[in-house]
């Protein structure tokens, strides 16, 4: 079974530039999560989708971050414009609808460095 796919693996941009990350969840997983993990901290949930609808985006900085999952499958997370403090690993995870967060599978993440 293929896992959660993310790209790119690494990205370096200058502050005020834009960046987008892509995630393809495990086939059949209706729930998709984007987490931000700053160095030395645990992952923080940015947004949670069920199919193409947003369940929770309470911690998403909406002035600069946006995410979509138009067809209920893959998802993109965008930052525009980026700030230095956005440097982090962005983790995507997915799970079957109705399953607990414990059964979420994580992708390898995208390491973003903003200089």
């Amino acid at each position: 079974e293929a896992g959660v796919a993310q790209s790119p693996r690494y990205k370096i941009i200058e502050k005020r530039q834009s960046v987008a990350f892509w995630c393809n969840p495990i086939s059949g997983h209706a729930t998709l999560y984007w987490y931000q993990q700053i160095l030395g901290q645990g992952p923080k949930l940015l947004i949670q989708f069920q199919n193409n609808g947003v369940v929770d985006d309470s911690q998403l900085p909406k002035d600069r971050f946006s995410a979509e999952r138009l067809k209920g499958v893959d998802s993109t997370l965008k930052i525009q414009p980026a700030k230095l403090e956005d440097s982090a690993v962005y983790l995507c995870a997915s799970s079957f609808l109705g399953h607990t967060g414990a059964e979420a599978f994580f992708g390898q993440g995208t390491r973003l460095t903003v200089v």
Partner: protein
Amino acid sequence: EDKVVQSPLSLVVHEGDTVTLNCSYEVTNFRSLLWYKQEKKAPTFLFMLTSSGIEKKSGRLSSILDKKELFSILNITATQTGDSAVYLCAVEPERGAQKLVFGQGTRLTINP
């Protein structure tokens, strides 16, 4: 605000030692507590705990939950260099939410 706190933040031991990692939490409701191992980027699932006092065990790793005192411990016996990683504790704060609140992690280093 839901909160998960892990201690210590960092731990360095020698191969063969036994270690205990701690996780305490404050959440409005509680569904489950989970432990993950993070070696590079993707956290990998270790245990899920929902009931107090019942030890979960997998090889040299074991974990137990105390819902009265709101904490959990993760034990690793006879540590090996391959156990070096960040260990994350997370809580599922309410039934149906399907989301996780993570602690800051404990960075464990096992020296040969």
